């Protein structure tokens, strides 16, 4: 079996190499890096979903050295990151023209490297370092298009994000001084040593710090701007992958490391608020990318409240929805990006006449909208169904009503978009669909239908993933029990 450390070491190696090259070589290196990562992740996947792989670094055992925890959720996120990264890279090779491109590619690779690191690490300070790698490259990439909207969005993201990262650092150091360790499993074992007041304070710090990354309601002011202002290829990744990794880090800290179960009721309502306000804001939007951004935030709120409920069925659905939403929202942003590029119109009116001009794109857009809404038999249906059922089992009935009502709002604006796609005429011409758009869209469509018709494909990963998220003693045993 290959060592999972290569998932982080090799992209780093390639990222150091990319700035040296001009021309086609740098694109080949970028694609190669993602292909290698995808292959390694898939090779490791069957082992990791049954028994977490602990990788020690620098030959020191966990509490002394840093270790990687390659569990079911971590490896799934890693596959998602490298897969969507690969599709995004194919898209951006053709679509992104602003110089200096070699720096752009290196930043792109490093952002996804940071996300992989966040999902695999087993050490709280290391998590902070990878969080900074991810976010600093995201700030740079968001403002990369160097127009007003991108620069201002990048600045806003930077100010809020780095404030949050500092709060995370204070939280990390509070946990370190009270437990004397930085290893997640070690802290989880000794969390009883932490005084209640310090634990509450650290919880607030982590809530704010990671809540910013996970786009939680009062803290997500940066997200619509950043998703709108970033280059199209970056919006895809910010919405589909980076936010999921933030969510993962949040629950890794709250559930596994700090073992907080009594804050569940508060967290559910934060999730519901994120969902509801996201949907309401999306209803009013005229800008296509902004609408998709709010819709993506709302879905994150849904996932958030489902994990907060904490029944195994709800978590199962949430993990499934993480995969589904990564595919769906990535595809929607990709289509939106290519349409905006063709029509040079940021408004939702740019969708007019898409149905008659490009059937594939129109079909893919419809599938994306219906999948996000949760129409059977698309993949979104199964995950949403599981989440709602799980929440009802967890005695969270009132939130379920809110969710159903929010889905109604969601249906209104998504069906309006589909209506615009098929039933309104326009004179704008859409160019022939280039390979860079067609290939990712078709791959994602195949995956969506595959997961929609055969949701049982995910069973192994979901069963392992529920254990990974909810079972603290399993986590501790995996790290220390040999």
């Amino acid at each position, binding site marked *: 079996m290959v060592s999972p450390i290569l998932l982080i070491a090799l992209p780093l190696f390639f990222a150091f190499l990319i700035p040296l090259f001009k021309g086609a070589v740098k694109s080949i290196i970028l694609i190669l890096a993602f292909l290698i990562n995808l292959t390694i992740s898939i090779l490791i996947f069957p082992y990791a979903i049954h028994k977490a792989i602990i990788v020690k670094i620098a030959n020191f055992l966990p509490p002394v050295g840093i270790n990687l925890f390659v569990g079911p959720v971590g490896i799934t996120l890693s596959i998602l990151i490298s897969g969507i990264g690969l599709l995004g890279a194919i898209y951006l090779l053709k679509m992104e023209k602003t110089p200096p491109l070699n720096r752009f590619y290196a930043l792109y690779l490093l952002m996804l490297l940071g996300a992989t690191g966040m999902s695999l690490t087993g050490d709280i300070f290391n998590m902070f370092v990878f969080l*900074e790698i991810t976010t600093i490259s995201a700030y740079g990439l968001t403002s990369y298009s160097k127009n007003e909207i991108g*620069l201002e969005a990048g600045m*806003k993201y*930077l100010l809020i994000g780095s404030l949050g990262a500092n709060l995370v650092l204070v939280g990390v150091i509070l946990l370190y001084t009270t437990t004397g360790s930085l290893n997640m499993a070690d802290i989880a074992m000794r969390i009883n040593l932490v005084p209640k007041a310090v634990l509450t304070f650290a919880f607030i710090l982590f809530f704010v710090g990671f809540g910013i990354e996970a786009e939680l309601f009062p803290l997500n002011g940066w997200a619509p701007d950043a998703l709108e202002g970033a280059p199209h290829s970056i919006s895809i990744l910010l919405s589909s992958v980076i936010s999921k990794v933030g969510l993962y880090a949040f629950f890794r800290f709250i559930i596994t490391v700090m073992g907080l179960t009594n804050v569940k009721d508060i967290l559910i309502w934060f999730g519901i608020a994120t969902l509801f306000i996201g949907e309401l804001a999306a209803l009013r939007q005229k800008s296509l990318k902004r609408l998709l951004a709010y819709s993506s935030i709302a879905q994150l709120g849904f996932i958030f409240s489902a994990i907060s409920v904490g029944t195994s069925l709800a978590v199962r659905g949430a993990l499934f929805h993480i995969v589904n939403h990564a595919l769906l929202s990535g595809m929607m942003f990709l289509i939106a990006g290519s349409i905006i590029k063709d029509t040079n119109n940021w408004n939702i009116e740019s969708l007019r006449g898409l149905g008659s001009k490009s059937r594939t794109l129109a079909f893919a857009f419809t599938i994306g909208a219906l999948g996000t809404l949760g129409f059977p038999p698309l993949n979104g249906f199964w995950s949403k169904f599981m989440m709602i059922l799980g929440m009802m089992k967890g005695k969270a009935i009132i939130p379920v009503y809110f969710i159903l009502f929010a889905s109604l709002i969601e249906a209104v604006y998504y069906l309006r978009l589909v209506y615009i796609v098929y039933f309104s005429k326009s004179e704008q011409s859409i160019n022939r669909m280039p390979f860079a758009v067609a290939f990712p869209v078709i791959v994602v469509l195949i995956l969506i239908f595959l997961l929609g018709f055969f949701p049982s494909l995910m069973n192994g990963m979901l069963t392992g993933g529920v254990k990974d998220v909810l079972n603290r003693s399993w986590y501790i045993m995996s790290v220390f029990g040999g």
Partner: protein
Amino acid sequence: MIFYIGSGLLIGIGLYGMLYKRNLIKIIIGLDFIETGVNILIISLCYVKGGTAPIFSLPSLKPSQMVDPLPQALVLTAIVIGVAVLAMALSIVVRIYDKRKTMDISKLKRLKW
């Protein structure tokens, strides 16, 4: 305790700067103060009464007399990360000034808060 107060003051002043000031450079100066304050906090947490620096420069030094070395290693990382964030922020500020000829956030649509 005086170190806690010092770091708390620095963090508070930095927060005040980030919340109240309108000039982008001033806001980033506030961010720098927060980072420095957090670093002072971390280092003061690792101090042990009567401890020496964790360097065995003389064979006579005993491990039991030393301060906690781990937070010092963390702060080394945190300082460098802080500089990286500031460099990124300032490059964006220069570009914003290029485009808009202003660094006042109340004149920038998306940065208003």
